């Protein structure tokens, strides 16, 4: 990976698409399927040209039967056809919970290592523009509870491509979560086929006052304020990338150094990943903690559809800065802070960018 030329900027969507193309080329038996995979919208563009290139035997649309579709994918996976299934919202995939938990997650173990299940499950998570209670659930916590599953959430195009390729090659079932608001972000991505290891967090910045551990869209949020905070605070910023396996080694090292930790999580607070991380920090670094570990998550509330409510629902940049301030006892000039935050003010808080005009 060291020698990879990074000088090309593409979108998260294109990065996903590239990974799929390269992996399908690499493995002639790899299949891709999902509702709408070949329709004109091509799952937000992530599957474009796949069918054209690899044919409708390997790239196919499916009936609305999420539970059985996963079972069928499991059958294919164990008989020589690793595969990628995509759901346009994570929420729809709850229909497949029996197959996910009672079959995929434990098949390798419960059959004494006779059959493994190389399947990658792409789940898109919505936010804002009235997505509401059934189109916006961030359930990485639930998936990660189960032995046998891996859970991955990229936050930029480079990782999206590398992690997806790694997930596809992984011999186990991998839940691959794509936050809808990341789809249009852009970043440097090499043309080559490369992988990013599952289970390795990414150190985004190094510092000694505070460890910030983040995931999914929260990483992008924190990146917006990192520089501002760094003017006064030295921050170890870790983007998890993999929720499971969790890179406790990187976390440990950082917390032992800083003694203070803030976890940013996109899930419901109660029993979120942030609880597991804080607990593992307790188990591993208790005597290094200078201050109680903190977390910022969404509240224990389903996302309401109303524009008037999502405003209060999602943690704001100010919320995060205030918490960091509190933890490090470093105050910011309120006027300066306000000016800074104003640079992010857009008319609407419920869209990923001004380009977004609905409907979903």
């Amino acid at each position: 990976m060291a020698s990879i030329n990074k000088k090309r900027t593409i979108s998260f969507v294109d990065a996903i698409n590239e990974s799929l193309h390269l992996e399908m080329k690499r493995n002639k038996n790899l299949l891709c399927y999902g509702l709408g995979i070949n329709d004109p919208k091509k799952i937000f563009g992530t599957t474009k040209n796949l069918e054209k290139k690899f044919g409708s035997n390997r790239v196919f649309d499916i009936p609305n039967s999420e539970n059985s579709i996963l079972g069928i994918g499991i059958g294919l996976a164990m008989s020589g056809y690793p595969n990628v299934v995509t759901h346009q919202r994570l929420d729809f995939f709850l229909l497949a919970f029996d197959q996910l938990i009672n079959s995929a997650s434990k098949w390798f173990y419960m059959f004494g290592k006779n059959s493994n299940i190389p399947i990658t499950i792409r789940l898109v998570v919505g936010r804002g523009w009235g997505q509401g209670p059934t189109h916006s659930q961030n359930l990485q916590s639930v998936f990660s509870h189960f032995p046998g599953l891996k859970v991955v959430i990229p936050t930029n195009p480079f990782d999206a491509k590398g992690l997806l390729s790694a997930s596809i090659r992984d011999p186990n079932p991998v839940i691959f979560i794509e936050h809808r608001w990341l789809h249009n972000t852009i970043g440097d991505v090499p043309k080559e086929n490369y992988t990013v290891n599952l289970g390795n967090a990414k150190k985004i910045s190094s510092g000694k006052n505070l460890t910030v551990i983040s995931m999914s869209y929260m990483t992008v949020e924190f990146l917006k304020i990192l520089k501002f905070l760094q003017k006064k605070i030295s921050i170890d910023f870790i983007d998890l990338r993999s929720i499971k396996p969790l890179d406790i080694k990187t976390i440990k090292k950082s917390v032992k150094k800083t003694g203070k930790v803030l976890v940013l999580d996109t899930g419901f607070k109660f029993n979120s990943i942030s609880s597991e991380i804080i607990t593992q920090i307790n188990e591993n670094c208790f005597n290094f903690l200078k201050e109680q570990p903190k977390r910022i998550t969404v509240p224990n509330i389903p996302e309401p559809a109303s524009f008037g409510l999502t405003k209060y629902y999602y943690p704001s940049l100010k919320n995060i800065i205030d918490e960091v301030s509190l933890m490090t006892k470093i105050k910011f000039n309120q006027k300066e802070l306000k000016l800074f935050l104003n640079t992010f003010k857009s008319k609407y808080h419920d869209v990923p960018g001004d380009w977004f005009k609905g409907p979903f």
Partner: protein
Amino acid sequence: MCSLIRQVELEIVNRYKEGKMRCPVHLSIGQEIVASVLSIFIKKDDFAVSTHRSHAHYLAKQGSLRKMIAEIYGKRTGCSMGKGGSMHLIDKNVNFMGSTSIVGNSIPIGTGLGFSLKLKKKKNISIIYLGDAATEQGSFYESINFSILKKIPAVYICENNFFSVYSDLKVRQHSKRNIINSLNSLGIKTFKITDYHPVKLVNKMQYIVNYARVNSKPVFIEFLTYRFYEHCGPNIDDNLNYRKKEEIKKWKDKDGYENLKKFLIKKNQKLFIEKVEYLNRKKILNAFKFAEKSKFPNKSDLIDGIYK
């Protein structure tokens, strides 16, 4: 009713670009006739549930127009206090018990509502709207089996518009699949609506609803129909070419709403139509005014209502 629904939906189309209806909308334009005809025979104490595409069903059940528009605007006066959005409509005053966004999700719920009518020994029915894609969900089959078993007065109405989002029936169901016969063999009376002549349609619907109501038994109806706008949103998406031009034209010619209008004009009801449309127009403008004027929910509403 048909006219009200069409006019409401067109007004949503008109205004969506203002960016004040900040939620997905799945319009019924082209499919209104189904719920409209049914509305003639629905009683207030009948239940109804629906899907992501529920505006027509909600209005046909006499759901409050103002509250629906306010919901789409995310306002506190909305039928779900702004928390559900266009995909989660409810009006318990008229026993429209909820529409939900997960394909197939409301089918068992409507079946349970029907079961409650049975237990109460009421001569009411439970109407369950669903799309063609929902017939691919296990919940559809499981629910039908249960309602046959328990003789539940449930009316399953499948609006087959040939598409799941942009996916053609043919990538989801085999061309020889005959759902009407298949369900019939499970023990439920089934009907396929092919003739859209207003009088015949009304008669047939009356017969069907009556059958379920009087015998306390489930029925299944398949309507062939067509949506004229995009799957989700206010635009026409025929430029995407996922449907054949001839097919679109064929269905536009069959448009239940236009045909009803023509039929009534033939019967010298032009004045009546104009009056209805005028009154609808007023009602609709009022509803939008109400929605625009209403307030968003309060911050305190956010945490309110997790538990009763």
